[in-house]
């Protein structure tokens, strides 16, 4: 097989999706459901109206930010499972600011953005310190801190930040309007949040492509010892990378509170930290592909409640559709490499 021909490349590009559809269709048919109906419902649920499109758009925001951050840590060769915790930290600091300060939107919104950036960055530094000075693998440091973050959220919601009417799992009191990100018309989408996500992706794209820092991170990811010998302070840059990722993810968490839920809820991250892992892998670690991949993920997410209402299929089908594509993408990639190697 000639892996360089345009047709082959197209076929290999489409293959992960085709394989995903084929496997899920097989499962659905085994369960006695009509897969075509399911897919139609899913797509319809995501795009049938402008309101739905707006829903898809806004749910892309935190995932884009988390993915943008994760691109940075990926460049440095880090498996940053701790993005969830970083989002939590951003959301917590944002909530604290909103509760502590009374101010008009023009002051409040920039403050919440800063709080999100700072909260996530601090959390990232914590993981970085554990990793560099504590020699704890970042996977476990990040994961453990995720759970700590959730416990902290619950503690705050049930303790110091409980609404006057009594604590529930539904979260804190709603934020005042001054802390709501401005919406597009009557939709749920916020233009400012979208703008922030797009800017973040662009910044990360430039950082990784054209800056010395991006190259430094790449060198650390590929060979930390050699990078250190060339004069790169590897520990500091690992911490910086986690900090930068944390800042973006923290902003994502912050926007979950100010643009989507308008309060702090227990699982404020919405699982976007874990999904970002899939997004970044599926984008082949390239920033320019992230928005498209996120669009797919968000559309599946927004479309799946309708699938359930109409066909009584469990929500986990959405997760299967997301995860399977990434798995097949990796496998097809491997297949391509294998065939490519034989070619030579």
């Amino acid at each position, binding site marked *: 097989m000639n892996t360089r021909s345009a047709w082959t490349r197209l076929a290999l590009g489409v293959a992960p999706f085709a394989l995903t559809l084929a496997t899920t269709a097989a499962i659905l048919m085994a369960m006695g459901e009509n897969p075509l109906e399911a897919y139609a419902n899913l797509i319809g649920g995501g795009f049938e109206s402008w309101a739905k499109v707006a829903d898809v758009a806004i749910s892309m925001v935190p995932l884009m930010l988390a993915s943008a951050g994760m691109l940075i840590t990926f460049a440095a060769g880090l498996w940053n499972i701790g993005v969830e915790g970083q989002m939590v930290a951003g959301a917590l600091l944002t909530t604290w600011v909103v509760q502590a300060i009374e101010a008009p939107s023009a002051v409040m919104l920039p403050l919440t953005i800063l709080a999100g950036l700072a909260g996530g960055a601090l959390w990232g530094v914590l993981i970085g310190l554990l990793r560099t000075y504590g020699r704890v693998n970042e996977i476990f440091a990040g994961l453990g801190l995720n759970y700590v973050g959730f416990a902290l959220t619950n503690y705050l919601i049930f303790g110091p930040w409980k609404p006057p009417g009594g604590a529930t799992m539904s979260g804190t009191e709603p934020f005042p309007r001054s802390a709501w990100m401005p919406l597009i018309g009557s939709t749920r989408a916020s233009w400012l949040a979208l703008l922030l996500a797009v800017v973040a992706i662009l910044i990360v794209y430039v950082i990784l492509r054209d800056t010395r820092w991006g190259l430094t991170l790449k060198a650390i990811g*590929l060979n930390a010892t050699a990078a250190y010998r060339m004069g790169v302070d590897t520990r500091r840059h690992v911490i910086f990378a986690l900090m930068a990722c944390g800042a973006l993810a923290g902003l994502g968490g912050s926007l979950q509170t100010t643009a989507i839920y308008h309060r702090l809820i227990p699982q404020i991250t919405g699982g976007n930290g874990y999904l970002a892992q899939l997004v970044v892998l599926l984008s082949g670690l390239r920033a320019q592909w992230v928005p498209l991949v996120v669009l797919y993920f968000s559309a599946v997410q927004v479309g799946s409640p309708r699938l359930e209402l109409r066909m009584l299929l469990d929500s986990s089908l959405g997760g299967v559709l997301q995860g399977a594509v990434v798995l097949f993408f990796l496998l097809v990639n491997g297949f391509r490499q294998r065939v490519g190697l034989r070619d*030579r």
Partner: protein
Amino acid sequence: MKIEIQGINKSFGAVQANADVSVTVASGTIHGLLGENGAGKTTLMRILSGYLQADSGEIRVDGGRLELHSPADAIGQGIGMLHQDPLDVPALSVLDNFALGLHRGFWQRRGRIQRTFFNLCRRFGVQLQPEDRVGNLTVGERQQLELVRLLALGVRVVILDEPTTGISEPQKRLLFETLHRLAEEGLTVIFVSHKLEDVEMLCSVATVLRAGQVVGELRAPFDRERLVEMMFGRAVVAPPFASRCTTREALDIQSLVVESSRMRMAPASLKACAGEVIGLAGLEGSGQRLFMEACAGIRKAQSGHLVIDGVDLTNGRYRDYLDQGVAYVPASRLEEGLVRGLSVREHFVLARQRAGFLVDWEAAEQVASARIAEYSVVGTTGSRVEELSGGNQQRALLSLLPDSLKLLILDHPTRGLDLGSGIWVWQQLHERCLQGTVILFASTDLDELVDNSDRLLVFSGGKVSQPVASAEMSREELGFMIGGVNL
């Protein structure tokens, strides 16, 4: 056993490592295999030992055709190989390494294995403790272990790929004695080396490879010039060493003590003048590496002082060392020196662009292309470093060094390089001395040490000698000091 290698071809991508190679090795002889770097020696031997599969060609043993698909097949046929770097498991004990692959049974019968081990050790005068961790042994000891293991397997053909790069004179003598004895017992030995005197001492026949092809075969006694010409296609002579030492004191090391998890070094002191070359002699793992790393700022010293050009750098940040003009060139180039996956150009950005937020790709390209031309690196600025050959990787690493340096530290600067490349590297280094750079280098090659340095520091088991002028040292004496005598 008589071995006939016939018409072997082997390519890696575009590189043809072996082209129609045919060699015949008579039974009971020690057969030399020579050639410059990248000539294809290791590849050929790996094919013979089942580690690699040839693209075409065949191997006959005592007239019968061999089908080798894995090292297991080769060992089954009585062919064993001692690899260029000891191919053992450092984390396991000597006895475990010895036993690994030796028996097919289920239980590990330690008593029986140990008896076999001791018997062989006694026979060949090898002294190894069965419970030692192999990672703690010297390279020489590891080679001995490998050899003993191969013999226990009952091999009839032993292949040794550059076995003398990391071992001491006494160890080398012991090895050669053993090999002679084996040959007398009827074993066939194939000996791969760059060192002509080793081949002269040991072999009765030598085959020379160049660019993957056999260029000829000579019998003892060998004509040195002819061998060199066959290897390189021309005569190669090293210019005599001329000291560039000045009177200005540039380096002052006072009672430096360094320790690692394995050893604690005795205090070492050294004063060197600008332009001086100091060789660090000793077996691998005798403390040279700790010493160099401390001098380079990569490792903290426990006590003592390091003063460069009047600036006390002791235990400063690594960056301060770099800024002060200290550079370190590690022995394992791809592990510690270069970043696999990055291009030559990107290396120049990392090593040389210190300011600015965005990368100045144009400037990087200019510097990179100028430097790789100057250092005759075969490759482009866009080549990834792992695509370069070993010798070219070393050239690239040297080309990355800043133009002016106060202290240049090199670990085995010519390890694995052939004669020609080695001479070229030393020309470059000696030129740096003209600018007043102090050079510290470690090597296990006595010739390299004596021929290229002003003075020597001898390391042995963590102890360090006073600096001695290399011109006043005989190789004999040096060999004893390395072995720990008179230190």
